[in-house]
Every structure is written in structure tokens, then in C-alpha cells.
């Protein structure tokens, strides 16, 4: 495994030195973007080969506003220094929607990102992008997955209006659709490589506020911990969100976090995972195609996960991306990579989700 940071490396010399008219254009190594929910996780990410980390403040200005998670401004200053010392970037997520009466909080986050030396800000809301362009014209803008830009016109609008340099693509697109997008826009594309899977188009899902009052858009949370209640009756574990029964587990059945789209409900008398099974996205086997189409960055989901998760998943993705860039034609995911990722998957299950659409 290759340790250490990568500086969005140029095309390897050995690939450009011997031009072969039949070979596809040499691949550019995508940036590996790792989640940092804490300084400890940030350090793990850097040690295990992340090219960039993404993080946010301890408030509703980012979409992982979970208790005990995220950064004080002092911690960000430390994190930025450590990342830059290793040649890695810090991407600052301010990817929720400013709420009336509290817009100043989001402006403060933008000013903090600029003042603390973040390399880019990740945003979903056009009004906040307008503020950023006005106050910090040199700050690099990335469109968050929460911005729900699913096709070229949406991406190009944000480029024309705010000069976004990168867009994080919603997890509703297939590989073929991403390949087409790559040809239609000059904006860099970032896609998810591993992590918990949103089956819904991000930024347009209000299921959580419908049940609890708090959503990713308005509070930066989904199925928030403060609304979760566990109870046991005759050996059966019940998981509730704001009193609504999301799932029940028979004695001995492993119980997961009650994310409401991954609960079990009944439709026409039939009980099951009506929307989605507890499962994680694993796109490792798709890396050669993603790299071949010029994807700029591969993102790992999971700022809410442990430093151990970050270390393991970054390590695997680092090795996999390097292997896929070195020899895309002969790339195959190694068994030990998949075993490691499987251990960190939700419900111990993985899927390629919308990328290959088995449900099509």
C-alpha cells in the first residue's frame, strides 16, 4: 500500500513516454477525498494517503451536524496546517441551506473558511454562493451533492453564475450518465467511492423532517440521534424516531441505526425494506471506468464514522486508485480490500447502487 499524500499528480511519465495510438488517453489520477469528523480522523486520513479531507463546523452549516462531531475553528486551523504540510487539501463543507433569521451563521462559516485557509468550500445553496463570490472572490467553490445537480445544464448554470470548479454528483446517476456528463462540462466531477448510501436525491429529501422536524437541508441531520429511542419488549428491540416505529429486531437479529429510509415498513400487508436495505456503496470495481472518463475526485462518505473507519477505508481506496491508475486494464479489486470495506459497510452489505442499477 502506498502511504503519504498525493498532489493531484501529473500524468505518470511511463504512460506518456510511449505513445500508442490504440491506447486510451492516459488517466489522470483522481484526488482521494476523505471524511474528517474530528482532528483524529483528519490525521488518520492524511497518514493513510488522502489527497484531501473535507470537514465542517460544529453547527447546522454542514450536512453532518451530529453530536460530538466536527471542528472548532482552532481545530480547523491545526488541521489545515497539518494537511498543507503534507501537500493535502482541506475542503470546507457549508452544504446546508441558510435558514431565515440565522443566515448570519452561514455567512460566518464562509468567512471562517476563507480566514482559516481552506482550499475550497463545498456548498449547495446559490444564495450562499453569491455571498461567497462577493466577499471572497478567490475562494474555490465546489457544488455539494446536496445541491442536486444531476445534468449538464444544472452544473453549467452554477459555473456561469458562480464559477464553481467542481461538482459532487448525486448518487442517483449511472456510470453511463456520469460518462456523458464528463464530456458535457468543464467542471470537475467528484463521485462517491464508498460509504453509506442515500437512495434519495440528496438535498431534496425531507423524510427526516417529516418524522422529526430536522432534515439535512434545515439542520444538517438525517434521522437525528436526539429523536432515536430504543425499547425492548419480550426480546424484540424496537427502534423509533420521534415515536415512529422505524424497525423491530427479533432476538439475536443484528440491529442497525434507524435511518428512516432503511427501516422496515408494510405495504399492502407485506413487511420489508420498502425503500432501501441497510447497505453501503462500494464502487471500487468501477474505478478504472471512473478514472478513464476523467473523474477528478473520489469521495469517501462518513464524517460521522470513527477514525478507524477513516484509516481503513482511506488505505483501501488509496491502494485501489493507485492500482487502477497504474494498470486499468488488469485492475481487479483485491479480496482483502473488499473484506476491509465489507467490515465497515452498513448492515455488512455493499452495492454499486445507481452506478450499475441492478433494479433497472
Amino acid at each position, binding site marked *: 500500500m502506498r502511504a503519504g499524500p498525493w498532489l493531484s499528480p501529473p500524468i505518470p511519465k511511463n504512460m506518456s513516454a510511449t505513445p500508442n495510438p490504440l491506447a486510451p488517453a492516459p488517466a489522470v489520477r483522481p484526488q482521494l477525498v476523505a471524511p474528517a469528523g474530528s482532528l483524529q480522523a483528519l490525521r488518520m486520513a492524511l497518514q493513510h494517503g488522502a489527497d484531501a479531507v473535507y470537514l465542517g463546523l460544529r453547527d447546522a452549516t454542514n450536512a453532518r451536524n451530529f453530536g460530538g462531531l466536527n471542528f472548532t475553528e482552532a481545530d480547523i486551523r491545526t488541521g489545515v496546517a497539518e494537511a498543507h504540510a503534507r501537500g493535502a487539501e482541506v475542503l470546507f463543507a457549508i452544504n446546508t441551506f441558510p435558514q431565515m433569521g440565522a443566515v448570519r451563521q452561514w455567512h460566518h462559516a464562509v468567512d471562517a473558511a476563507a480566514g482559516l485557509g481552506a482550499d475550497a468550500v463545498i456548498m449547495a445553496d446559490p444564495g450562499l454562493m453569491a455571498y461567497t463570490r462577493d466577499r471572497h472572490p478567490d475562494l474555490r467553490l465546489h457544488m455539494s451533492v446536496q445541491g442536486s445537480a*444531476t445534468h449538464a*445544464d444544472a452544473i453549467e448554470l452554477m459555473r456561469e453564475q458562480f464559477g464553481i470548479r467542481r461538482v459532487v454528483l448525486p448518487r*442517483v446517476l449511472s456510470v453511463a*450518465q456520469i460518462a456523458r456528463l464528463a464530456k458535457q462540462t468543464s467542471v470537475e466531477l467528484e463521485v462517491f467511492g464508498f460509504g453509506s448510501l442515500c437512495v434519495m436525491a440528496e438535498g431534496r429529501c*425531507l423524510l427526516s423532517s417529516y418524522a422529526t422536524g430536522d432534515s439535512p437541508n434545515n439542520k444538517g441531520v438525517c434521522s437525528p440521534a436526539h429523536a432515536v429511542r430504543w425499547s425492548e419488549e419480550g426480546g424484540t428491540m424496537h427502534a423509533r424516531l420521534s415515536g*415512529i416505529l422505524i424497525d423491530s429486531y427479533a432476538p439475536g437479529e443484528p440491529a442497525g441505526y434507524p435511518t428512516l429510509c432503511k427501516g422496515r415498513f408494510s405495504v399492502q400487508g407485506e413487511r420489508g425494506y420498502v425503500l432501501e436495505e441497510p447497505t453501503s456503496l462500494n464502487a471500487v470495481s468501477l474505478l478504472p471506468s471512473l478514472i478513464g472518463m476523467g473523474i477528478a475526485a473520489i469521495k469517501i462518505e462518513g464524517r460521522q464514522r470513527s477514525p478507524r473507519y477513516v484509516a481503513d477505508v482511506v488505505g483501501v481506496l488509496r491502494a485501489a486508485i493507485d492500482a487502477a491508475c497504474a494498470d486499468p486494464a488488469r485492475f481487479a479489486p483485491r479480496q482483502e480490500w473488499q473484506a476491509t470495506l465489507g467490515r465497515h459497510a452498513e448492515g455488512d452489505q455493499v452495492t454499486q447502487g445507481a452506478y450499475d442499477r441492478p433494479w433497472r
Partner: protein
Amino acid sequence: MVTSQSAAAPRFGIAVGPLLYYWPRTTVMQFYADVAQSGADRVYLGETVCTRRHELRHAHWLEIAQMLREAGKEVVLSTPVLVESDSDLACLRRVCEQDDYLVEANDLGAVRCMRGRPFATGPHLNVYHGDTLAWLASLGAVSCAVPVELDGNALGALAAVRPAGVLLEALVWGRMPLAFSARCFTARHHRLHKDSCEFRCMDYPDGLAAVTGEGQPFFALNGIQTQSASCLDLCAQVPEMAAMGVGMVRVSPHATGTLDVIGMLDGIRAGTREAAPSGITPAGAEASNGYWSGQPGIRWHDHEVRA
């Protein structure tokens, strides 16, 4: 249309949102023939959920549009909410390229396709604060449907800073659209692939309810869209909304009750009827209004009706 209005009666327009379900063409035609006779001022038309649905082609929607316009309604053509497939893109282009009717842009790509011409924005464009509303207005937005999770205080604050010439619109009745996926949940329930879904969503004219293990209705499946199982009912809050500066209230089409709700709203603004919860819901649905007071959207609160 309002004919006689007392000084105290609230002033607001009534909009019929886009039909979110897949109904047989004759049912759709009859529904809009009824809408033409109703007190609705504005009618949104077109397929916003799934462009695989084909009971009505673009030409059929245009026929309905013409009929409604002749009946004195303002017609708005809506674009798909989640644009990813070729047919979504084709539908988006068809709607945005026509010049006969105002367009409801339901994603950022549609905003770009309008290229400065006037447009309305749908409830999934995430307009939560004034700067975003101002930005959309600078690109040509003349009307903006707010997110359904916005509470009454936030809506009032947003209305207070709305740019001149921009109409704010809020959903007041119907199952609330809560989420969209590339995946079709109706097909999934029937163990069918999306591409060979047999158009089963036509069997559920108000969506297909999913209930919890304790029998509590939670959400409703409508193809790629997930809705609330409960029916939003903010009919009692309509005068308050109007006083805030919300210019238009939206009713979302259901198999039953829609026309009655439009009639009640029309009565409220005519001053012939007290503002109160409609008491009308689609078959099997409970009423909800929790979002209005900053609570979970599924809940119902009895509010004192302000004069």
C-alpha cells in the same frame, strides 16, 4: 375568480399543482375540465415525477393548457423534478423551449434552459432564504413555491424580503412530496424492474401507503417519488399566509376532494366562509400541519385561527 370581496377578506390566488400521480387519460381530462369550472386561478400542468409515464403526451398537455386558458386560467408548464434519463432531458427541453406558457422550473438545469425568460420555481428548488430568492429573481423568476418544510415564521420572514414582482406560493393541501430517487419504489414493491414496471403506479391514484410495524401510516409511494402518507391541510392558515404576503396557495391534485378544497379556499377569500381546516383528505389519509409550527411534518396541531 373573485367577484365580490369584502374589505376584510384575505387576498390570494389559488393554484392547482402539477398532477403527481399516473391517472388514465380520460380521468385526467375530466379532472381538468372540472378545474376549468373551479375557482382556481393558476394551473400547473405536465409530468414532474416520471417521464416513463405516457398516458398524456406533450400535445395532450398543450390541449389541456389551451382549454384552461380559454376558461380564464393562468397555465404554467412544469419541468421534471429529477432530471437524469434521456426522456427526462427531452421533456425538460420541450417545456423550456415553448413560449406560449410560463414554465415552472423544478431543477437548476431548467433555470438555465429558460435563459432569462420569466419562469416560476417549484418547491424542490430549495428557496429557504432571501438571497437565493433574489438570485432566482435576477435570472427571471416571477413566482416561487417554497419548500414544504418551511415553517410559518420562516415563510413570513421570506415574504417580507421578497423582491418586487416575485409572487410567493405555498402548498396548503395534499400529500407532500418528500423525496425523489432514481429508483422506482412502486416497481420495487411489485418486484418489477423500473424499465419493465408495467406502469403499476396507475393502480394507486393517490399513491401507495407504507405503514409502520404498529400500523401508523408513514409515507406513500408514488413511483420514484416518496410522499407523506398524511395530507397537508393548512386551509386554516391561509388568511395568515395572505397577510404575510404569500400571494398564491397551492392545492395538489388527488383522486377525490381537490375540487371541494378549491371551493372552500374560494369561499374564504370571498368572505363567505371562515378559514378552518378543510377536514378533507384522500382516502385513508390523516391530516397533518406540523411543519407550519416548526414541528415534525407528520403531526397535527390544533391552532387558534387568527382573525
